[in-house]
């Protein structure tokens, strides 16, 4: 039977060991917390880098889209009007009496060309989307599509409009542009509806068309697969989500939810 001294020694050793165990446990717990925090910070940074990269790409795409639109506008409208005015004006001969109605018509064509140029210049203003709300930017885009004709585009809005962070607004605008392009290129749709629903914390945008639709499972192999992946990726990077619903012959609905901040 162990004597009293031995018992006390063993007890002291046990207490020391228990305390050391808790000390080591505490240190290990802190190391784990630190590891998790570093991991989260790394993930956050990677996400931020990806977001920045995506934002830059979005800016370039919007710029490219704007240039394409400008080129088409100048060629199809301003160019045509000015050519017509030039032809009309060149028909005047020095000795012949002036044909005032024709001159007036030529003047009218020049004035329309000037008006078109002014509205183009407004659109050309660097970062013009920044000065608009998402609703205004989408309205302007819809105007362009309506101008081209052949498609009915409606925009609806529910709830009170709220301010979205500039970067997110740019990305959301690009998502909507991508949806509209898909409708124009692949869907053969006649009606498109863009619905905004303003919730307290987030905005839901639903782009619905009555086009051909497609099989979602086969989308990755289609040309539009990359576009759809872009939509999903961009929505995710803004801290939001996206749902793409489509069935052959039933049109396509793209729903994107993005938090304001």
């Amino acid at each position: 039977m162990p004597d009293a001294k031995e018992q006390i020694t063993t007890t002291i050793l046990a207490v020391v060991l228990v305390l050391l165990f808790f000390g080591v446990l505490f240190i290990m717990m802190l190391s784990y917390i630190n590891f998790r925090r570093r991991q989260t910070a790394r993930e956050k940074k990677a996400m931020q880098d990806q977001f920045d990269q995506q934002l830059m790409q979005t800016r370039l795409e919007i710029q490219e889209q704007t240039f394409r639109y400008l080129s088409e506008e100048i060629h199809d409208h301003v160019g045509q009007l000015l050519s017509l005015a030039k032809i009309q004006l060149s028909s005047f001969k020095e000795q012949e009496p002036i044909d005032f109605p024709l001159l007036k018509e030529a003047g009218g064509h020049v004035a329309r060309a000037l008006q078109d140029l002014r509205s183009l210049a407004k659109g050309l203003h660097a970062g013009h989307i920044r000065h608009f709300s998402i609703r205004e930017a989408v309205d302007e885009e819809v105007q362009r599509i309506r101008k081209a004709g052949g498609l009915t585009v409606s925009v609806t809005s529910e709830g009170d409009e709220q301010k979205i962070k500039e970067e997110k607004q740019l990305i959301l605008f690009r998502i909507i542009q991508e949806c509209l392009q898909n409708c124009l290129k692949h869907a053969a749709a006649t009606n498109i509806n863009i619905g905004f629903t303003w919730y307290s914390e987030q905005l839901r945008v639903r782009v619905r068309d009555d086009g051909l639709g497609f099989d979602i499972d086969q989308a990755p192999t289609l040309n539009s697969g990359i576009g759809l992946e872009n939509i999903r990726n961009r929505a995710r990077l803004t801290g939001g989500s996206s749902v793409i619903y489509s069935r052959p012959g039933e049109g396509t609905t793209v729903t994107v939810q993005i938090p304001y901040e």
Partner: protein
Amino acid sequence: MTLFYYQYVQLFSLLLAILCRKGLNFFSIGILIPILLLDNITEIIGSNFTRIFHSPDNYFVYNIYYLLSTPLYLYLFAAMLKGDAREKRRLLITGIAIELFIIVNYFCIQGRVEFNTFNALLVGTANIVLSCLVLTRLAIRKEEETKMLMVDPYFWINAMILLFSLVSIIVLGLQTYIALNHLQFEGKNLYFALLEAANAALYTGYSGAFLLCQTQRSK
């Protein structure tokens, strides 16, 4: 002159601290050089005191050690906590209160002849609380400042102070009892058996931290 094995580790850590002084200053822990100097002097005198001065014990040396080392350790913790002015003021008030108790205990309560166990318990508790505080801050500091704990010199210093204090609070608290009852472990006085190992671990941790200070300063 008698030197125990842990004293070689202690001397080595002092030497390393002097060699890495720029690194230590870079991390605002240059105060560890005078602390280690005091630790080494105390241990050398303490381990030879009874033989040289023909005294029955060396309690006097360690009682004086608590009196001198406590403000230095509190300064070290203040430097590692990196708190705001309000926190520094709180720490200063706590430090003054602890130091006052140590002085009162040394002169009036337990006296100069008896080992000041109250001081050992108080300093041990303060070390545990403050090292836990520093360690927690290191683990949950701002995300952008978060770095691996293992490469942080503060981590090794505080982890070792914590573990050392957990052992010393029991052993030093029961010091008189262990001495009077001749409690032994593996044929060695229980007090020495435990504190020698704890000291060796503490100063090894310090040495590692000094090397980290120097390498990270160079970067």
